């Protein structure tokens, strides 16, 4: 890359970080700047202005007609008593002032339905409170760019999940409602314990957006894998460069028909890169299988890995070939 472009890009990264930090230190960078969450602002606003004058109808008025919605909400975090400590506006914390709707309940145009807002406004409603943590990089994120909003996946009133108020029973099922090809991968015989519910998509991906490709939560695919497979982090005395650059060169993390989530079964996976003299370049066909006429320990069972057992890297002085 041209050094000038690189300097410009690094300057931009730095400027954005400094800009964010400046906000943290209290320097206003945009009109209307506020460090308070909208719900808190709304609380203060409601306290200062009489309900009718501010356009708020009050939760009691909402529940008067929408009792079933309130009953559902009671079982969720937004319906718990503690929510009133964050916002005194109840339903109108999210739906906005509802006095006009309460006075003309049959006027469809006045329905305070979140669904009829644009995706950006739907998300802005939620981000009034949920703008930090995992939602920090929502803006410019992949899901935001494809026109999704918070309510594409979350349901405030009728969640099916124990956590995170999702529309499906789990984070994994929520993701699979769109990513069908990934779901099919997890049904393969070699798989992470996703379908058993022991890990979920959200263990590796942040669907709200990240600065990394595929919305993974670590700085790279390898860093993601190392978070659980720390024994492979090294750095080792003898390294396998293709391993260090990307685990995905050999593994298919969502599922595979081959042992250890391999993209192609050993020994053929290894032979996609190694065509050396002697055994790495040899053909292993049906005659070399366990019950074949020329049975070879280089095809059956662990194949190459029977000897090259430290394939991810080795610390043994006699292991330039990643054996031991």
């Amino acid at each position, binding site marked *: 890359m041209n050094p000038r472009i690189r300097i410009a890009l690094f300057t931009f*990264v*730095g400027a*954005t*970080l400094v800009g*964010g*930090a400046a906000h*943290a230190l209290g320097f206003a*960078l945009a009109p209307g*700047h506020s*460090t308070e969450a909208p719900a808190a602002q709304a609380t203060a606003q409601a306290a200062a202005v009489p309900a009718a004058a501010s356009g708020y109808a009050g939760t009691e008025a909402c529940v008067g007609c929408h009792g079933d919605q309130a009953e559902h909400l009671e079982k969720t975090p937004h319906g*718990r008593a*503690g929510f*009133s400590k964050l916002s005194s506006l109840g339903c109108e914390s999210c739906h906005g002032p509802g006095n006009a709707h309460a006075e003309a309940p049959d006027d469809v145009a006045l329905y305070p339905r979140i669904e009829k807002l644009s995706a950006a406004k739907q998300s802005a409603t939620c981000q009034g409170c949920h703008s*930090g943590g995992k939602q*920090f990089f929502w803006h*410019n994120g992949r899901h935001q*760019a*494809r026109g999704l909003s918070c309510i594409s996946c979350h349901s405030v009133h009728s969640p099916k999940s124990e956590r995170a108020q999702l529309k499906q029973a789990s984070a994994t099922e929520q993701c699979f409602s769109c990513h*069908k*090809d990934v779901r*099919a991968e997890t049904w*393969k*015989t070699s798989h992470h*314990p996703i379908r058993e519910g*022991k*890990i979920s998509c959200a263990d590796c991906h942040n669907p709200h957006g990240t*600065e*990394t*490709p595929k919305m993974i939560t670590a*700085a790279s695919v390898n860093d993601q894998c*190392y*978070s659980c497979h*720390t024994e492979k*982090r*090294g*750095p080792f005395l003898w390294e396998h*460069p293709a391993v*260090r650059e990307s685990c995905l*060169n050999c593994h298919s993390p969502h599922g595979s*028909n081959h042992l250890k989530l391999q993209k*192609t*079964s050993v020994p*053929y996976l290894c*032979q*996609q*890169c190694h065509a050396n*003299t002697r055994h790495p*370049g040899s*053909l292993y066909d049906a005659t070399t299988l366990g019950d074949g006429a020329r049975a070879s*320990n280089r095809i059956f*069972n662990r*194949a190459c890995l029977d*000897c090259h*057992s430290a394939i991810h890297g*080795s610390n043994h*002085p*006699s292991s*330039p070939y990643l*054996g*031991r």
Partner: protein
Amino acid sequence: MRTHTSVSLPILPLVLLLAPLGPLFAEGGDSGQGPFTFHLDPVAIEWLELDQDTNSSKFEEYRDLDSGLRIPLLVLKGVGANGDRTLDFTAENVWRDDARLGLDYALAGKYGLSLSYDKIPHRFGNDAKFLWNRTASGRFEIDDAVQRANQAALTAQFAANRTLIAFPFLNNLLAPQIASARSIDISLERERTRLDFDLGTLQGLSWDVSLFHEKRTGLRPFGAAFGFSNVNEIVEPIDYATTETTTRGEWAGKSGGVTLGLRSSTFDNGNSSLSWDNPFRAVDSTDPGASSAPGSGSINGSATGRVALAPDNRSTGFFVDGRWRFTSGWWANANASKTRMRQDEALLPYTSNSAINTRGGAPFDASDPANLPIRNADRKADVTNLSANVGGRFGEDFGLTFRFRSYDYQDDSRRVIFPGYVRFDSNWVSTGRITVPPAFKRTDLGTELNWDVTPSTGLALSWNRQTWDRELREVEKSDEDIWKISADSRAIKNVTLRASYETGDRSIDGYHPEAAEDSFTNPGPLVTQPGLRKFDEAARQYDAWRVSADFLFGEAWTFTLATNGRQDDYDQSQFGLISDEVRFVNLELSYVPGAASEVYLFGTRSDRSTFQRGRQSGATVSVNPLDNWQIDFDEVNDAWGLGWNRRYSERWKSEVEGRWSKSDGEAEIFSPPGGTPDLAIGFDNYEDIELLALKAKLDFTLNPRVGFGFWYLYEDYTIDSFIRQGVRNYLPGALLLNANDGDYRASLFAAYVRLSL
């Protein structure tokens, strides 16, 4: 054998220590006082009865469905007297190897604490035949008398007629020992404890601390070898501990924000090395051909093998995230992180074979660590990651985003020269080798333009250039341009359409096959095919596409049809991976006539074809095209499912689901006649796998406090894998565990009582 172990909570004391700090730290302090009111969600107590026809580990690979008692889910929710404090407890699969516990405490808007404990079993295989006995944590021994007897038999045969030292002789020698070998189950267990502590807000900055600890214990299959003809599959004792801490401060406002934090991760291995006895030798010995022993050429080698296991290591670093909203409504995001990874494990000597010394062909006693050029690994690598994007809307209908990312991995460890090495603990090889610390930098630069053609239809066009800069690899620099166009539309009522097409073109600045010899201090002639291109670096073109349509018919019917595919071509590669293509189709149909009933059907098919080519060589690189071979792999995966959920009345409800999946793989192999190999035979069990799963549930509510029900699960799993075809405990050149992770047919019946207390 597995046991249902009790739950341990190693971080609990720490939680109790930290919990009082929350209210002190949070501005405003703890205003919630008074007793909690608890609500227990309906809880089921369940009895399982399992009937499985084989002892395959596959049925319970990641789960515990053994016969016995369990509580599938228990949820206890507590609320403080004035409503602002919550204390929730969740337990899943209580009394089981796959149990999960969770405890959450929060003071609304002030601080929160979340503690979880999760057990994840991973069963690799049952009933493995194992000749060794574990005499210490990283030591596996065979009875000395057995080793001596085998060595004596080999010595006698070598003297009488060495040509008979081949598979039949060795098989007869080991057969009685294998027959009396003990049987072991191979599995490990992960115990994960996580504590997330939201410390609340101080001076506008919210802080949180997370701690993660994972203990992995058990056994894992491990490849161990004393030579090309003496591969041993043993078990690696797993005693891993991972501890990770993250401290994070965040300020998030409407138009800007910053996050900064520190992250640390350590890995400790309770076993730094693993040693195991050679079944065929009791006394160390060596000769130049010992790495092919036992055979007609040699019966020598080491009495014991020793391997370095994953070393202790640690990773520490910091990260800064920033975001900034411009007055125009555009957003800029950036992230910077720096991480250092280190490991400094003491190195093992070249070998455990005491015969490899000045009399045994080595320049020194190779079993003495004092003769190593370094005593500790002293490895360190730095990762610098920078990324940023800026994007927003312009005009009425357009959006634009620019993205940049740089990931720089630099292994700063010094290159270490070794004068030679010991092959399989069998013999000294006097070829100088030098370590090759990897270094690479990946840079992404791209932009995306979005156009709202109509309020219900959008188009997006994006371009991304991915650049790699590497050191000490075949390709030092590559550029890949990736173009993508996508469209989303809801223009037709009750129909959602999504489509995208992506194409990429990677060019390289040259391919240097001699880089594969960088670990030799004095590289000789090239030993790899010069026409090979390692696919992860090679020039390539790819095309990928995706189309999906969701239809809603009336109030009750929904139908989804989706298809996608990708084809990668490595046109400049003569050997190695040449092409890789996958196509996928999915359809789903559901009918929900009302709240009382739901019927659904789904089906998928994926078809993957991979093509690769090789050329067989002897001691020197073959230039004869007749020595070529090529393989077409084809894998077809089908999965279908059907389900029906029905509520008959306020009391009765049922759920039925069936799922069937099948993988059908084939390897078509070709080699031209006249070369080596001369004739190639493919196989049609390139992992043929079939799984049928049926589940039915019937639930009855007796009264608001009591309900009961039954469920039944049937699974039938078959696998026909070329890699396990004909595998027994001893095969030519390999003594294997041959554990059972294959076919099974299992029926699981469960009865439960559900109580609302």
